[in-house]
């Protein structure tokens, strides 16, 4: 009797620590319910695959090159991914990159301004075009697919038309001897060494943008609003979320990142081909979708989009390192997209089935 009594006090401390009984199952469920889990698995599998078949793929330099290729897509994809979580599309992002690069180059060159003035004016233009896209979408109610398809053609035509009028050719003049070029190049297109490996600065910027986007999505009020306007705009509006402002801001975010990407191109190559950028918009969208973003909005993550861009960079370089015909890359991309969409659909079903 006295023994059993003395045993009883031992039990409460165990009972007082609540998590162990509940934790294991939800953790697994939560892991699987994360939007980026499919992309993470795919990235690991593809990495191992190329690691085995392509010896050249294994070096640290190769990895740095992969990251660089990923960042070129990844930077704009951060914005496109957020926009898609917010329930909208931007098909104009690819050619817009070129538009902003052309703007900065031609303004600075023709008016003989400091490079930074052109860079700044191009940023203003990028925010304006983002605003116009967003404003037209929320005002007219026409799907953003169509609105931005329109902007896409307008910009594509204007890129070539205006460049020809101004320079007489389909590319801009070399701006590498302009005032302010060197400092702008340091910001947008330099590289540095870590442990003897050359890393491009765009990789750092890319990671920074992903961090900011992740913070915004998961930790801030704006993030809550982005999920809500993509998931159920009518419901969001009814509880007082400024749906239109959020959507316009997202379009402007894409504009800003497209501008950033354009500045990288300008300062990396010194001249810009006016006809470039076509088809890039799909790569941004694919990166977001492969990363677990739902095409219908309301679900996704910035880390997932980054993984999508990483898969893109890895495959693009991996095929080269393996010595295959690079044309297969597009075919691979298509397969990845189809797989991702199928996985996303089942994830969405899994996450919304009734459990309680």
């Amino acid at each position: 009797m006295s023994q059993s009594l003395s045993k009883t006090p031992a039990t409460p401390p165990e009972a007082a620590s609540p998590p162990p009984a509940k934790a294991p199952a939800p953790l697994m469920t939560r892991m699987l319910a994360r939007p980026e889990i499919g992309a993470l698995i795919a990235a690991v599998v593809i990495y191992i695959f190329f690691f085995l078949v392509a010896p050249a793929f294994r070096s640290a330099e190769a990895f740095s090159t992969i990251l660089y290729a990923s960042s070129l897509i990844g930077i704009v994809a951060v914005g496109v991914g957020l926009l898609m979580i917010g329930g909208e599309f931007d098909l104009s992002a690819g050619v817009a990159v070129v538009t902003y690069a052309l703007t900065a180059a031609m303004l600075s060159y023709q008016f003989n301004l400091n490079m930074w003035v052109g860079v700044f004016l191009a940023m203003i233009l990028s925010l304006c075009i983002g605003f116009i896209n967003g404003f037209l979408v929320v005002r007219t109610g026409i799907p953003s697919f169509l609105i931005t398809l329109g902007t896409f053609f307008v910009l594509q035509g204007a890129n070539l038309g205006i460049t020809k009028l101004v320079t007489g050719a389909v590319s801009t003049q070399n701006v590498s001897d302009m005032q302010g070029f060197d400092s702008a190049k340091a910001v947008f297109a330099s590289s540095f060494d870590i442990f003897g490996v050359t890393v491009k600065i765009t990789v750092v910027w890319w990671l920074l943008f992903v961090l900011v986007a992740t913070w915004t999505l998961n930790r801030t009020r704006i993030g809550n609003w982005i999920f809500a306007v993509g998931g159920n705009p009518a419901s969001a509006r009814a509880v007082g979320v400024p749906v239109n402002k959020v959507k316009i801001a997202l379009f402007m975010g894409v504009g800003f990142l497209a501008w950033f990407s354009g500045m990288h191109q300008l300062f990396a190559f010194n001249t810009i081909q006016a006809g470039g950028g076509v088809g890039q918009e799909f790569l941004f969208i694919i990166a977001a979708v492969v990363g677990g973003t739902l095409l219908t909005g309301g679900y996704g993550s910035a880390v997932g989009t980054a993984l999508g861009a990483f898969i893109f960079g890895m495959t693009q370089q991996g095929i080269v390192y393996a010595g295959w015909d690079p044309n297969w890359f597009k075919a691979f991309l298509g397969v990845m997209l189809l797989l991702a969409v199928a996985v996303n659909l089942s994830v969405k079903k899994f996450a919304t089935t009734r459990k309680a």
Partner: protein
Amino acid sequence: MTDTLTEHADPTLHKGEPLIEMTDVGKTYGAIRALKGINLSVSAGEVTCVLGDNGAGKSTLIKIMSGLHSHSEGTLKVDGKEVHFSSPRESLDHGIATVYQDLAVVGLMEVWRNFFLGSELQAGNYPLAPMKIKEMREIADSELKKMGITVKDINQPIGTLSGGQRQCVAIARAVYFGARVLILDEPTAALGVKQSGVVLKYTAAARDAGLGVVFITHNPHHAYLVGNHFIILKLGQRVLDKKRSEVTLEELTAEMAGGRELAELSHELQASQR
């Protein structure tokens, strides 16, 4: 169960005091008239039921009160002051919260995110300030528990809850954020008998806590269970306006089913059978 309702309900509410008064309110969409000459008042501690068939103007009526559309005729007074809402935010700021049948919540978002949507707690007032996530989770969890809504995990997407639970979360949210008038748009339309019961209980709880409730439905049985005042709309006009003491469930049901028109129809049908 009604603990939090009474706790959070505005203490300045006095039963019977009019919160919303509509006089001759009408609404036209271009050449189409959706609503005409509506007189309606919503008082604290009472449930005003608005009944009507599809297309009777119920949705237009709530959209005016909740600020999604503004009225084109007549006057709308809240707490005795004339208002003209141009956004849901304005209506919310006057303490009018609307819970919609199908769009009450964002299905893929977690329960706690839904609970605080549009009224998030922030750690500071600068851009990209973090939300107080831990606090928000705890508040949402305890509020729902206190109201008898058991959610397995506050972090699960709200789409995994049943329809009745989702409505209840939406109602709990509205009350927690200081709603004085609660507009429920067809809260029981898509629900089974048991689930409807749960929602009706919360409706009654909100009423008893002193809130003014506007209950939109096409089910006179549900309306009669909780209602103090009944208004039937037909083709944008009011065809019945009675207190609970002046009307029976049978009358309400008959009027809703079409009243005189139905009687005529039954005569015609019988005649053709002979």
